[in-house]
């Protein structure tokens, strides 16, 4: 549905997005993840045809956004970040205008407006001037706008920004429902959102793509670096013994509830050390130190930890947009 190839955008000497390539297949819900200022909005604007890429190409539904721009734009519904709308128009008037603009044939327009009003749950404010609506409603009107021509692809830039927790839950539910019939690319800097609605995520930092994969794959990137070991013995002594071993970066001990002499050690290996042999040596050292090893398990990384690691390691040096 989306084929982005080596897409870059620079503003004079400032590089906003550099060499980003990815695919979004039909029917996927993909999260576009990154800290603020990472280049999310710039990239989405290039996909939607609002900005031209300095180099590289974008294809939407097989149409190049630069050379077959009208065909490509007809296949997508784009919701910009701040949900800009005309305050003087009523919701229904606005959607009718957008439907006409997106070439919905005259006799189908009324039905299309009704359908999008229902899908985005804004039917109750259909006759209200947009300027009088709350932020949550405006956001949903913008979503209705993206849906009005029933495009196969939806590109949503921070669809939950500025909403209260209840509204966020509603919008996420809506996105999941829409995902059954549309391909969706949505950007966010909120991690639980990606876990809640997306099947796959693209992580962008400093204008470049730093990771791509399913949520499980992204989490797995962290595995092997941290191991939990439950042991019986003197925590201080065991920690000291482990820290002397090669390949061990750090050891933290935490007491387990309801046990006086059993502790949980979190073992962090150095990124360049072989995690498996280091673990073998650690267990051997623990046994040699007289500890009773009860359980060894890889620590499950949270997406936050992966995100922090990915975006910090690859963070830009020159603080560009």
């Amino acid at each position, binding site marked *: 549905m989306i084929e982005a190839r080596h897409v870059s955008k620079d503003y004079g000497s400032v590089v906003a997005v550099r060499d980003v390539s990815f695919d979004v297949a039909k029917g996927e819900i993909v999260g576009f993840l990154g800290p603020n200022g990472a280049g999310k909005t710039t990239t989405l604007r290039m996909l*939607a*045809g609002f*900005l031209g890429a300095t180099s590289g190409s974008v294809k939407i539904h097989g149409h190049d956004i630069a050379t077959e721009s*009208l065909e490509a734009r007809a296949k997508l519904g784009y919701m*910009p970040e701040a949900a800009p709308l*005309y*305050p003087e128009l009523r919701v229904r*008037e606005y959607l009718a205008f957008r439907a006409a*603009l*997106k070439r919905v044939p005259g006799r189908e327009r009324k039905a299309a407006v009704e359908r999008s009003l229902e899908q985005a749950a804004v039917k109750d404010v259909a006759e209200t001037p947009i300027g009088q609506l709350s932020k949550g409603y405006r956001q949903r009107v913008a979503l209705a706008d993206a849906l009005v021509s029933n495009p196969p692809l939806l590109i949503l830039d921070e669809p939950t920004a500025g909403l209260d927790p209840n509204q966020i839950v509603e919008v996420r539910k809506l996105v999941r429902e829409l995902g059954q019939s549309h391909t969706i690319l949505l950007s966010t800097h909120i991690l639980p959102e990606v876990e809640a609605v997306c099947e796959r995520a693209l992580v962008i930092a400093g204008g470049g793509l730093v990771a791509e994969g399913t949520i499980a794959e992204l989490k797995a990137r962290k595995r092997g670096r941290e191991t939990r070991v439950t042991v019986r013995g003197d925590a201080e002594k065991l920690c000291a013994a482990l820290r002397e071993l090669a390949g061990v970066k750090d050891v933290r001990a935490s007491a387990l509830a309801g046990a006086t002499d059993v502790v949980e050690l979190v073992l962090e290996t150095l990124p360049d050390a072989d995690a498996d042999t280091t673990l073998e040596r650690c267990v051997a050292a623990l046994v040699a130190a007289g500890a009773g090893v009860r359980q060894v398990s890889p620590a499950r990384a949270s997406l936050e930890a992966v995100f922090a690691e990915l975006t910090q390691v690859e963070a830009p040096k020159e603080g560009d947009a």
Partner: protein
Amino acid sequence: MSGFAAVYRREMLSLWVTPLAWVLLVVFLLLQGTIFYSIVVHFTSLADLAVETGPIEAYFGQESVFLLMTLLLVCPALTMRTFAEERRSGTIETLLTAPVTPAGIVLGKYLAVLTTYAAMWAPTVLYVVVLRKTGSIDWHTVGSSYLGLLGVGAAYLALGTLMSSMSKSQLIALLLAIFAEFGLFVLGVGEYVFEPGLVHDVCAHLSIGSQMEEMSRGIVDLRRIVFDGSIAITSLFVTSRVVDSWRWG
């Protein structure tokens, strides 16, 4: 041209549901009414009624400087929001990501303000209708006068639309448009300033005042129409290139 009809309808709706068009209409009609009334009063005080021209010709023709001054206020105010407001509020992003061409957007917006301009002039036909009771009216000169006004409006509004695409601020767009349109007006005044010669002739050709004077006497010179049309088309072409250029900003 894609998107023209939708943009035109939206622009008309937005113009007439907000106070802007109504405020301009009221100010415009008050000014025109005052000007026309003064001219009629002036003619009634003339002893010799056998003069060549009547109040209608004077209003559209040799006294048209008053009428043109009001246009220098009304036209920039009509066009200032066309693009500046879309860019300030960010709606330009939804507009340009819809399957529409820059030419469709520019023409839709331009023809909407031109229609509004024509609608503002429509009530002034009543002046002529009222005066019909006092003497014979030459409807041909009335027609050519309105054609002249349409030409002036077409040029001014296209210039104003271009200026609105130059800034995100409506105020800056307004000032730029006044500057451009006043400049065009002042060029025409050069006809009365310079000695006969090349500069005088150039100014006479560019003079919107002279255009109205000719038109008010029923003289429809194709060169005047071509002049207005060229300003309009050039401005609109540049505007559509400006709109296209935002993609690369």
